[in-house]
């Protein structure tokens, strides 16, 4: 029955096997790279109505995060400051700068500025800022070096695995409570997570929940 198929088709099983393996590997690699929050969320940097620079304010001027986001220690929600907060300084500093016109308009007309939200947990996730920043979890853990960003961009994946990494081994991520708002803090040479981190976890009585209902209430 030789002439139904040409002779090269004898190699077909091998070609199919190799082709299948290569395709499978490409699909897995592609999905792992492109379809996870590490790619799909990180780097998101929307254009804001006012080109507010965190790098100047929090970095060069050394403003504390809490000067503007003053609800972060008390509330689940870390608030975006009202135009009044800006005007505390900008009624005297750069008071006629045209780039600040939307701020002055908002202040005078009592209409909030429509900032574009960068970090957003889904509706089915309960996240409480105050619980985290009062328990040795620094802003930088989720938001990156905002003090070095000109305009804010999404620095971390904020995927569920990202949350669970910390919830599963908090001692590797906590820092002394005094350094929570110091984004540049690095553990010293003699810092050992298993000892010092674990001591903090113990001291602050951290019981990081891994149950579904901790976040999906």
């Amino acid at each position: 029955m030789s002439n139904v198929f040409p002779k090269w088709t004898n190699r077909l099983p091998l070609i199919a096997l190799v082709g299948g393996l290569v395709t499978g590997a490409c699909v897995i690699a592609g999905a792992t790279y492109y379809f996870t929050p590490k790619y799909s969320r990180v780097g998101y940097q929307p254009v804001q109505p006012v080109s507010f620079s965190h790098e100047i304010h929090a970095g060069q001027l050394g403003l504390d995060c809490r000067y503007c986001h003053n609800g972060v220690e008390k509330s689940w929600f870390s608030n975006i400051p009202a135009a009044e907060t800006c005007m505390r300084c900008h009624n005297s500093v750069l008071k006629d700068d045209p780039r600040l016109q939307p701020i002055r308009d908002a202040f005078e007309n009592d209409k909030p500025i429509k900032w574009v939200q960068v970090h957003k947990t889904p509706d089915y996730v309960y996240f409480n800022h105050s619980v985290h920043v009062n328990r040795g979890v620094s802003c930088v853990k989720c938001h990156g070096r905002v003090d070095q960003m000109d305009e804010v961009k999404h620095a971390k994946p904020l995927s569920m695995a990202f949350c669970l990494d910390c919830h599963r081994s908090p001692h590797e991520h906590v820092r002394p409570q005094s350094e929570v708002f110091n984004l540049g803090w690095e553990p010293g040479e003699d810092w050992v997570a298993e000892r010092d981190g674990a001591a903090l976890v113990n001291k602050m009585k951290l019981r990081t929940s891994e149950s579904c209902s901790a976040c999906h209430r």
Partner: protein
Amino acid sequence: MSAAAGQPVQVVETHTPKELVRQPLVLNNRPLGWITEQVCSIVEGKMPKWWNVAFVVSFLMMLMCFGYIGYLITTGVGVWGLNHPVAWGWAIVNFVFWIGIGHAGTLISAILFLLRQKWRCSINRTAEAMTIFAVICAGIFPGIHVGRIWLAWWLFPIPNAHGIWPQFRSPLLWDVFAVSTYFTVSLLFWYMGLIPDLATIRDRLRIAGKKLNSGLDWMINRFKQFTYGFFAMGWTGSNRHWRNYEKAYLLLAGLSTPLVLSVHSIVSFDFAVSQVPGWHTTIFPPYFVAGAVFSGFGMVLTLMIPMRALFKLEEIITIRHLELMCKVIIATGSIVGYAYGMEFFIAWYGGNPYELYAFKNRAFGPYWWAYWTMISCNVISPQLFWFQWCRTSPWFIFIVSIFVNIGMWFERFVIVVTSLHRDYLPSSWGYYSPTRVDILTFVGTFGLFMTLFLLFIRYLPTIAISEAKGVTPQADPHHELGGAKPKQEGAH
């Protein structure tokens, strides 16, 4: 007579008992070539008119099923009748119903093969095809019942950005493995058995193609040669091919045998591992397996009785085959009936008031009609097969087989719905009714099933040609009609 001759006196007349001849599995001493011709002519010839009508009807029903699935996905599970406290409704009932039907195919192809039951040979191909199509129909329901179907891949343990795995302690995950293994092994088994027959069709097409020179017919013939030839994987029927084939067949039969028992055991764990009275029962695994084989043989008979009549296969799928399948139905039907009785006994003997209530409520509660439909179809109707006339009249078997199908669907309905509709809190008691979408999606899966089955009849040999030949008397070289004949006096 004299004793002096040293001969014992013959007191009792001796009789050589009459040798009971088994009815042959292919009737009328048909030659081997006739079997090939009879089976291949279905694939090679034009389909009769009824096939076209049946195909159009099935195809439209299948489209209806997909349409309703699309409606479900775009709208949400609210289009079904599910609500508290009955959170598992027709989707699970239909899943268990279809997956159970598949078991006859695996039993026939694997267990009966290992037990050297030769009568399986003319029915195994169709039964295996039925298994695969039933598992396809079954697989739809767990996929769509999750609500957000685009997340159905969470059923599988795939590394993901959530940093979690499915719950390995849940029988629902075991189900995923059980059913996907079952489907894969059944498909491989079926396909491997098909290879020699696909090669037969390929070779017959080549012979037929020699008469064609050009034109559309020639192109169609070439296309078919390529297609059948591709799937025949270069089978030449050499001694080495057959040896490997037999070995692989035996191995796959060995692999499938535990699946006959494991798949429906695990499906039963979906219920038995829970704490719900009416589900939390240790008898579930064997009872589900028996029920699955019972329903599967019901469906095999439902499909095969019309098929053998319409395609004139009565000499290959004989009355004896039907009769033997009816015996399997009595056996498994009786096991199922025993299990129904035992559930009630344990409910009383176990002394748990909730359990007893659940069972009393099954038989005499608001769903009494479903319970007694189940009992009459599953327990009473198969007992008719104790009478030989009932086992040997195809039209009668056909009717009973329909009852078996109905009864087994109701069994799953009774288990799923009646156990749930009475919660521990009387304030949450409810009555579940399906919606139009529930009903028509299920009806539509019959369209999918029949579409696949009709395509199978149209394009693939419905009977395993080589195996059916192997069990004919002529295949035995020492049979008087067989190949190795002693040399006749004077012949040379």
